[in-house]
């Protein structure tokens, strides 16, 4: 029950969800009142996506319940969710670009338009036009979706979700998952105006990384962190800095990040960028990376830091500027080139780019430098086993045997296998792209230990991280990016580490 005695359109009560090794949602309660726009924010891994997936019927909660108009509902599938009155406008748009707008809007609901066994396209288009009027957009429903701009498609998607209105009883709740991430400002203004105009038809849950937008559109805001709701407040009482510190804010624990083991970096420069540019992603980036240093790159989504990390791993060659590795110009056109220069990339998508799940631990560890375990060009299996066993022992990788398939290891141990691969390959520069994503606290700590050990031995690390806290805790120096450019640099040695707010100021 909500304030004012009105029944909430949608209510989550004590919802809990666990995945192997991760407690993704911890006793989450949240309500959406009729006609309300609720903002939902949180860092990556805070649990927003899991929450959305539970609301759209993709995941089932382990505990707690969902109520729609005060009645408990069980959402076993996206179809269930839609039938209940919960619609979703996806971040990755869900329209099929090879179908017409009308066909998309009525996909799976063609029955009313059947004339005999054939589809009456005229009737379908006319009905689609009525849906498009709801979002006040003037496009021809018979046009193929591919021809529409991204912003137009988003409106079509919204119109499609609004078809639920006629099918359900009770309130319609529409989730907007990062709807503005690829829109221009003018398009965002239109979208917001439409959402406001639709409030008498539906309630909205608005998920975005852009806090100013959240404040602009939402009536109330929920802040999530580590799988729990940590704050809820009317937008009128919030500002971006306050929200951001709530989102990231936990008192940084020097011990957690092994700061006592953080040694000063060495004078020699191992990698240097000057005016480095990747068209459309980042521009004019300068930095120097020293042996034994952790260089953190901070920035919000869209700041260009994600692409910068991939460039340094050899996966997205820069289009301008210069990059030198150990004093020699390097293009890093392919991962192979990066590997041969002594660069190892630990990717964000561990299961896709990090490990080969169907290969055993031993083959994964030697994959980055298989030649090292050959004799006369042929794989020396005894040598390979010894190598793998050494790393399993040194990094305390928990695996039944080195023949175990990596897919059967926990996330933390998979990540250690990826690190072992690069250390074994003799990498002198390691790019850590969100290295602790999806790991539990204990596994994160082990990764931090490892970072301290390898840097003590002179390995340099480029770090992009899910949390500012981690960036600050691990780094020697931090560069902050905003809107594709470096906006500020910080020294971050133990004892002189910047505050999260210092960084945030230059990020948003």
């Amino acid at each position, binding site marked *: 029950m909500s304030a004012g005695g009105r029944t909430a359109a949608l209510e989550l009560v004590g919802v809990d969800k666990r995945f192997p090794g991760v407690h993704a949602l911890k006793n989450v309660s949240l309500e959406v009142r009729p006609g309300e726009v609720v903002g939902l924010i949180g860092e990556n891994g805070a649990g927003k996506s899991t929450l959305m997936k539970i609301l759209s019927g993709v995941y089932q909660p382990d505990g707690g319940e969902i109520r729609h108009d005060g009645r408990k509902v069980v959402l076993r599938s996206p179809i269930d969710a839609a039938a209940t009155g919960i619609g979703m406008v996806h971040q990755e748009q869900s329209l099929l670009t090879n179908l017409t707008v009308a066909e998309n809007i009525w996909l799976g609901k063609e029955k009313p338009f059947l004339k005999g066994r054939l589809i009456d396209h005229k009737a379908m288009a006319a009905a689609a036009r009525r849906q498009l009027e709801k979002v006040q957009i003037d496009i021809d429903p018979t046009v193929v979706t591919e021809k529409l701009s991204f912003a137009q498609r988003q409106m079509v998607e919204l119109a499609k979700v609004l078809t639920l209105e006629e099918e359900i009883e009770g309130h319609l709740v529409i989730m907007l998952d990062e709807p503005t991430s690829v829109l221009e400002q003018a398009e965002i203004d239109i979208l917001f105006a439409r959402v406001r105009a639709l409030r008498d038809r539906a309630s909205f849950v608005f998920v975005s990384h852009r806090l100013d937008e959240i404040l602009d559109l939402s009536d109330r805001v929920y802040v999530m962190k580590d799988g729990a709701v940590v704050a809820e407040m009317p937008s009128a009482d919030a500002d971006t800095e306050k929200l951001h510190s709530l989102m990231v804010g936990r008192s940084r624990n020097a011990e957690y990040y092994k700061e006592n083991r953080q040694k000063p970096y060495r004078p020699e420069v191992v990698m240097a960028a000057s005016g480095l540019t990747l068209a459309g992603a980042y521009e004019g980036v300068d930095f120097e990376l020293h042996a034994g240093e952790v260089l953190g790159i901070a920035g919000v989504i869209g700041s260009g830091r994600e692409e910068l990390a991939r460039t340094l*791993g*050899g*996966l997205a060659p820069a289009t301008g500027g210069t990059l030198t590795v150990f004093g020699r110009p390097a293009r890093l056109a392919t*991962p*192979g080139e*990066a*590997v*041969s220069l002594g660069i190892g*990339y630990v*990717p964000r*998508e561990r299961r*896709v*780019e*990090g*490990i*080969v*799940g*169907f*290969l055993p631990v031993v*083959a994964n560890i030697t*994959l*980055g430098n*298989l*030649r090292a375990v*050959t004799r006369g*060009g*042929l*794989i020396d*299996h005894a040598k390979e086993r010894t190598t793998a066993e050494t790393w399993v022992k040194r990094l305390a990788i928990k695996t039944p045997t080195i023949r175990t398939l990596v897919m059967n290891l926990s996330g933390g141990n998979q990540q250690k296998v990826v690190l072992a*691969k690069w250390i074994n390959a003799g990498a002198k520069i390691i790019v850590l792209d969100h290295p602790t994503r999806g790991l539990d606290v204990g596994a994160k700590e082990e990764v931090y230990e490892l970072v301290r050990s390898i840097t003590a031995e002179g390995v340099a690390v480029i770090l992009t991280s899910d949390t500012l806290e981690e960036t600050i805790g691990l780094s020697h120096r931090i560069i902050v990016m905003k809107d594709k450019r470096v906006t500020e640099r910080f020294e971050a040695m133990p004892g002189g580490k910047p505050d999260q707010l210092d960084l945030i100021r230059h990020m948003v």
Partner: protein
Amino acid sequence: MNPAVAARLRDVAPILTLILLVLVVGIGSRGFLSPETLLVLAADTSTLFIMAAGITFVILLGGIDLSVQAVASMSSVVMALLLPSLGYGAFPAALAAGALLGLANGLAFTRLRVPSFISSLAVGGIATALALAFSGTRSIPIGEELRHAYLWWITGRMLGIPAEIWLGLIVLAICLFVERYTLFGRWSLAVGAGEPAAVASGVPVALVKLLACVVSATLAAFAGMVLGGRLVAGSPTLANEFLLPAVAAVVVGGTALTGGVGSVWRTLIGALIVSVVRVGMTFLGVDVFVQQIVLGIVLILAVWITIDRAKIPIVK
């Protein structure tokens, strides 16, 4: 069923199937289990196995090679045409012709990024056309003298065992060695099991794919030579009807069409299963057309059992 048990069962299913089939046919027809019949069966399997061994490398990395039967036929034509003039030189020439087609297929696959399904189908068409052109659309018989002079290593016997069996065993040994001890072998598995991770690890993925196509076509050409030697002729349609059994052999053996899992060793088991089914059906008096139907059904069943749906939820 618990997944570990299911995986274990999937693992040993091919060899159990083979034993079961041999027993069933052996009981149904007593002549089947005689040493002489079994030797003929093994010799018969050899060409199929050699061809299937080649495809295994392509399937291991997640691709497919549909050009093998056409390449084999073409190779038999090249061999039969060149034997009179080149003698032993005809064999490397036929192999080289196959390797060249494999190279073309591999380049289309890796450079032009045409799916291997299409590139190999197209190259197969080219191979057939070449074979027809070279041979004037006829079968080219190999004379008695030439056969005695040059084909002894295909048609003869060593230690009482048909030479073809030895050839199959040599191919098996080489392939197992490549699989286990070479960078190419390991990289094939890595590409098949997780191409993005292999790319990010610096594995020369395109080169591995290219090489696999060349290996496949070269072994197909070798199979074509052996088959041509056996039938003492080269023909543009010599190896027709081999593609289905060859792909079946790979898959029935338990090498996943999705890549990353399998071995030439498994392909040997698969080839033997296919042979026992065919020969066994002949022994049991099953019509030759019905045999083809049974083979098709066996292929579908094998894929149904071996495909790991946890890895690929959507099948197209």
